């Protein structure tokens, strides 16, 4: 009884408290209203255009904002032509050298002295922690190179002290001295004549940093900020970086060139190629990097624009000549004849590449047109193997790179196709891969049996293919993953490197390519096109043969027809 009345009291008290409680239906309706409230038709495109914002869907996060410390194309794309400038540069879309920070230069007769006259009107970026008090001068050039060159330089050890490109090009052996011969004049003294030197100075690692900023950072006791809070002279200044998400840049209004560019630049980092393409198709990016061959095909079918250019690159299958059976040239030749490269071009590249006959692409001035491609004949391959004494077959490993690159969108697939081809000539293939950093480091140590890799040139000089990839010195400590050292070949490319006469150099290179064909340290596979996809309102984007993205001269314009496809054009 007592319980009952208590219950009643409870109910009565509670019911008074809960008077006016919304019914479930009302709750549901208000929820729906909230959802619909935020579902207004997308304001995205209008906002972007008003803010003069260009969104570039990039394929990865940069390893550093200082191109001196890295060699990956992704890192260069985020820095070299965006935040920094070099002494010289290429005319847009070509391989012709043009002035940049240096307005003129002269080379001594013996090819050992390069004197650069610097522009006086180049300001550096400012940031919250740095206000530059002077324009660029010789001190900055000296700082940038000496940091890499001199081990006792105060900034040498900062951020790891490894300058992979500088070391790979053996710059410290090439450059004898760098002298400041005037407030705006610098002299490079070389140990030997090196014709590609100007091309080398156009490479991202030769970007010019601010010595003043370095001093300021020393005072602030944060020298490493020079590499992750970058200050340069380039068309855009670095604003913010959210790892794996985006990089924001703002137009540098005091840039020394008055070339047109957008006010806001964002790199939307999207490593997943399918997602990148989906974002581009939906109009969330204005430019998309590294479209896969199938994306290009679908883009073509649906009237989406692409900008393409034949790339200065090569994809190859390198045989580690230090390990049997690859020490035998006959075996190498035999294997090159057994692979169906046409099928690879179709399946892996979707025909967005040309078959590689020589290690350098046809666009290079040193290309040997007279060399014919390797015959595809499994029968001949078997014969050759028999001659070499391997008629019973053998097993090999192919190390396939785990990431996509323009020159090789799918090394794994390529390895599988080669595996199938070689099965027909009694060669057993095991495919091996590792995480990229580990992969590279193991391959550099020569642990591989054979490897599928590639090379994207850093500069337009043919030497940039031959020396780093096929010279004797690079077989010891460089990118010569075939570990191949042929004295005759080496001699030729060295001569080509030191001669300053282009016609003479061409002759050397032509002969070198003949030796390469005979010795077959690689199977050259393809030269891929460099391409990006662009929205119709992007104007002025030029893709360079050597691949680093450049947004100078790129502007956004409303297209002429206003038909609103959802999300796409506007």
């Amino acid at each position, binding site marked *: 009884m007592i319980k009952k009345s208590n219950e009643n009291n409870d109910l009565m008290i509670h019911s008074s408290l809960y008077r006016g409680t919304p019914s479930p239906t009302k709750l549901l309706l208000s929820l729906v209203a909230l959802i619909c409230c935020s579902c207004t038709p997308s304001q995205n495109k209008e906002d972007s255009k008003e803010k003069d914002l260009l969104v570039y869907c990039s394929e990865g996060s940069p390893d550093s904002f200082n191109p001196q410390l890295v060699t990956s194309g992704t890192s260069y794309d985020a820095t070299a032509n965006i935040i920094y400038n070099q002494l010289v540069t290429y005319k847009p879309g070509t391989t012709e050298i043009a002035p940049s920070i240096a307005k003129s230069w002269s080379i001594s007769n013996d090819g050992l002295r390069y004197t650069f006259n610097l522009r006086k009107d180049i300001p550096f970026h400012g940031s919250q922690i740095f206000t530059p008090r002077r324009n660029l001068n010789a001190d900055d050039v000296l700082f940038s190179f000496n940091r890499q060159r001199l081990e006792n330089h105060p900034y040498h050890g900062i951020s790891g002290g490894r300058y992979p490109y500088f070391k790979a090009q053996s710059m410290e052996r090439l450059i004898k001295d760098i002298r400041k011969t005037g407030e705006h004049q610098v002299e490079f003294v070389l140990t030997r004549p090196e014709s590609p030197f100007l091309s080398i100075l156009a490479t991202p690692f030769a970007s010019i940093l601010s010595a003043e900023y370095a001093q300021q950072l020393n005072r602030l006791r944060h020298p490493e900020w020079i590499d992750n809070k970058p200050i340069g002279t380039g068309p855009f200044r670095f604003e913010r970086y959210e790892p794996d998400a985006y990089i924001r840049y703002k137009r540098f209004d005091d840039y020394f060139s008055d070339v047109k560019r957008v006010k806001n630049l964002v790199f939307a980092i999207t490593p997943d*190629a399918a997602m990148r393409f989906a974002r581009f198709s939906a109009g969330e990016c204005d430019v998309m990097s590294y479209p896969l061959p199938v994306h290009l095909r679908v883009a073509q079918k649906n009237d989406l624009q692409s900008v393409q250019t034949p790339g200065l690159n090569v994809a190859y299958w390198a045989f580690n000549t230090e390990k049997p059976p690859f020490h035998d040239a006959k075996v190498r030749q035999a294997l090159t004849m057994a692979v169906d490269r046409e099928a690879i071009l179709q399946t892996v590249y979707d025909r967005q590449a040309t078959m590689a006959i020589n290690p350098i692409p046809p666009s290079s001035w040193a290309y040997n047109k007279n060399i014919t491609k390797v015959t595809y004949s499994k029968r001949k391959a078997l014969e050759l193997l028999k001659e070499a004494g391997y008629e019973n077959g053998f097993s090999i490993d192919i190390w396939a790179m785990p990431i996509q690159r323009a020159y090789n969108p799918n090394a794994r697939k390529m390895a599988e196709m080669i595996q199938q081809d070689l099965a027909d000539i009694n060669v057993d293939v095991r495919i091996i891969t590792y995480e990229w950093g580990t992969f590279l480091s193991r391959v550099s140590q020569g642990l591989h049996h054979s490897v599928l890799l590639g090379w994207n040139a850093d500069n337009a000089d043919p030497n940039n293919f031959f020396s780093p990839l096929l010279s004797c010195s690079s077989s010891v400590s460089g990118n010569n993953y075939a570990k191949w050292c042929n004295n005759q070949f080496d001699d030729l490319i060295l001569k080509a490197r030191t001669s300053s006469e282009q016609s003479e150099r061409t002759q050397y290179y032509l002969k070198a390519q003949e030796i390469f064909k005979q010795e077959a340290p690689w199977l050259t596979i393809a030269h891929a096109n460099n391409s990006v996809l662009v929205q119709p309102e992007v104007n002025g984007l030029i893709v360079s043969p050597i691949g680093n993205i450049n947004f100078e001269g790129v502007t956004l314009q409303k297209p002429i027809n206003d038909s609103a496809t959802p999300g796409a054009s506007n």
Partner: protein
Amino acid sequence: MIKPMVSANQKAAWVIFRHNKGAMIGLIVLSFILLMALIGPWIAPHDPAHQFNTSILVPPIWNDAGNFQYFFGTDDLGRDMLSRLLYGARLSLQLTFMVVLIAALIGIVIGAAAAFINPTLRSLLMRIMDLLLSFPSLLLAIAIVAIIGPGLPNAIYAVVIVLVPQFVRITQSSISEELNKDYVMAARLDGAKKLRLLTHHVWPNIIPALIVQLTFSFSTALLDIAALGFLGLGAQPPMAEWGTMLSESRAFIQFAPWTMTLPGLAIFLTVLSINLVGDGVRDALDPRLNR
């Protein structure tokens, strides 16, 4: 001796099931899908791996640009969707059955053993099972695949490991429950040995619970395998697994929605019908758990 009263229940169960509209629909759809999976290779118009290079992203027949040759259209590599869906049915269902049966076998054996071991050990074992069950299944699968590598066989191991604890728990708790019942006490008093107790008396009575668990595990396994395929951790391209097909369609949803909607629909309908049948089976066998 008190006989387990199963046969009468079986008839009653079927009657209940038959009257459950949802369950019957599920059964029909599921049977149709099973049929397609079985005869798939014979009725598929094309080789699912063949790439028709000139027919990339052709729409299905109900679209203006579609044609009869590729009934459900083609994907981004020019492969016929219908053929791939049929082979995918075969693959997905085979994998699901295999995974569930292996997990059930392992789980039931462990669960049965657990019901007879010493209570502290049992409680420890069950605690571990509970922990595994509370662990997000996909996270566990990802961790396992990260260790042993991506690919179909490894995805199978991962999903089996994820499913086993459910079977262990249901077996153990069902057996324990039965062991406390009167008829078992009676049999024990009669002198029945443990093993006979298990096989002759207890087992027939726990079958309903196990069957219910089996049906739900089917849907979980199918979804997990497809999810792993979708994330690129399970069946790898060019295998025609539905989840993998969905993954490959991501870049082209805008231009070729059928490459996404059709494989997804296949997964959805299969899982839905399994769940409908499962619900029906549960209602039929265990009316106490009335909805």
